């Protein structure tokens, strides 16, 4: 009671005593939470305690949406139904062509049989109408460990990567979006195969690529795909599109800005995905064993990206999607005369837009020496692109 002053007759000791007690308790909690996973249980319990409040806050809007849905007129429903049927046909058509493409691609790669899709199972989750910290890019979703959700699980929406789970409660989970300043996602530029890291900026409409050297082959319009490194996201999922490349003569690094494909602010429904273990495109855990993929410490892994150089044995498949040219790229390849020549190899000479992509395709090292893909097939491949590979945004 040495510190006690004021209302010293209060229950539980003087303010000074209680202050010391609670302050030490909070510091211990902070320390443990920071140092490791000791506190997952406590967090879990607190999460359960907070759940009624979550329900109380989110249920009015949920009820309002439910009412809106219930009183939707017949016409609205029919219109929506028609729209969905059209959309479904369109998607089926695309997936048909995609399957043909995938088969052809596998043949070209000499694989015996087609691989199953990397996503084994997914679950639709809804974003709970709750404001977490409005300055951090986090959202709460209504699925938790009861639905099998785990920490560090990839969350997608229908357009691209959205984020990953950070804290998982029994019925809900906190998702850190890829645009959070603390989040970094290992990406690959689709056109060149260049690997780098896309870091969130805190703004829902922008990602930064801070680790690209000033002479890196990147330009506005390039599509970023997840590279499969980092252990959370599988390879080949769309992340965003480069919109701004700023090269400053005195700076060793280029300032590159991208916009994410996923609509961070508009989404109501998101997808939690479970990936097939051992699939070549499945996420590869970094050697450091950073399991949450909170890649604060990971930028070093790919800080010095080498153009299309093999980083690990998943490269051939990981680059399967990037290697296929997309319509935008075919156009883009012809444009840049000012692109500095790469020290390693010319990725795409401006003049031979026809042959550029096939060269890239062969750069990812394959264990078995394969003869270059027949140009005809590649041309066909390109012809099929426009409808099959249209990135949103």
């Amino acid at each position: 009671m040495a510190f006690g002053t004021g209302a010293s007759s209060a229950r539980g000791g003087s303010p000074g005593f209680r202050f010391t007690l609670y302050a030490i308790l909070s510091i211990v909690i902070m320390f443990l939470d920071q140092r490791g996973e000791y506190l997952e249980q406590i967090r879990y319990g607190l999460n359960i305690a907070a759940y009624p409040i979550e329900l109380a806050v989110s249920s009015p809007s949920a009820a309002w949406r439910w009412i809106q849905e219930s009183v939707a007129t017949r016409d609205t429903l029919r219109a929506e139904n028609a729209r969905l049927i059209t959309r479904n046909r369109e998607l089926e058509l695309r997936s048909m062509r995609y399957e043909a493409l995938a088969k052809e691609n596998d043949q070209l790669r000499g694989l015996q049989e087609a691989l199953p899709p990397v996503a084994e199972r997914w679950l639709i989750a809804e974003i709970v109408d709750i404001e977490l910290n409005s300055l951090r890019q986090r959202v709460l979703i209504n699925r938790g460990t009861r639905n099998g959700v785990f920490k560090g699980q990839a969350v997608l929406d229908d357009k691209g990567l959205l984020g990953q789970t950070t804290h998982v409660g029994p019925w809900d989970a906190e998702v850190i979006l890829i645009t959070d300043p603390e989040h970094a996602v290992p990406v690959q530029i689709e056109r060149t195969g260049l690997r780098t890291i896309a870091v969130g900026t805190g703004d829902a409409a922008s990602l930064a690529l801070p680790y690209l050297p000033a002479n890196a082959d990147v330009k506005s319009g390039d599509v970023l795909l997840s590279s499969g490194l980092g252990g959370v996201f599988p390879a080949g999922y769309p992340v965003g599109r480069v919109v701004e490349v700023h090269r400053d003569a005195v700076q060793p690094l280029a300032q590159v800005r991208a916009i994410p494909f996923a609509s961070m602010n508009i989404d109501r429904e998101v997808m939690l995905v479970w990936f097939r273990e051992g699939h070549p495109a499945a996420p590869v855990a970094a050697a450091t064993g950073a399991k949450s993929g909170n890649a604060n410490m990971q930028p070093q892994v790919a800080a010095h990206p080498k153009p299309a150089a093999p980083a690990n044995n998943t490269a051939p498949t990981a680059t399967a999607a990037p290697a296929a040219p997309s319509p935008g790229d075919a156009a883009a390849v012809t444009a840049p005369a000012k692109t500095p020549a790469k020290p390693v190899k010319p990725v795409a000479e401006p003049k031979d837009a026809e042959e550029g992509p096939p060269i890239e395709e062969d750069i990812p090292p394959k264990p078995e020496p394969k003869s270059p893909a027949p140009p005809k097939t590649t041309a066909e491949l390109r012809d099929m692109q426009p409808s099959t590979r249209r990135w949103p945004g």
Partner: protein
Amino acid sequence: MNAEARGAMVLTAIIALILTVLPLPTYLALVRPAFLVLTVLYWSIASPRAGGIGLGFFAGLMLDVFQSPVLGEHALALCIITYIVVREHQKIRSKPAFQQSLIVFATLIFYETILFAIDGWTHHPLNNPLRWTHTVSGAIFWAPVAAVLNLTNDRRR
């Protein structure tokens, strides 16, 4: 008085927490005062024996669950400011409303400074200057919040 005081306290704290996490349009959310912090401050001044530091700690833990990347952050910050306010509650209570607002403003600045420091130390830095806006709106909102909470207090007495 104690049980009833605690009931009113817990109830108002829960309502304040709901107001804190209620989804609002971005612009409103940025100027939203930290209702739970104001409520805790109010009870620390009005009824320091029943509420005060313990209330601050548990309210802070709930804030941590919703808003904080590291548990215990808001709990520690609220502990510290409630301790100061409990020690000085008689002085603060006797001040006119405007001066109380100024004191609350200073307290909120201190509170946010603690959070800012902890954010940095735990490697979750948040340098957005907008994080300080709630201190201003908290000072502005102090008078109405205190008036509303006074109602529950007066009825009980």
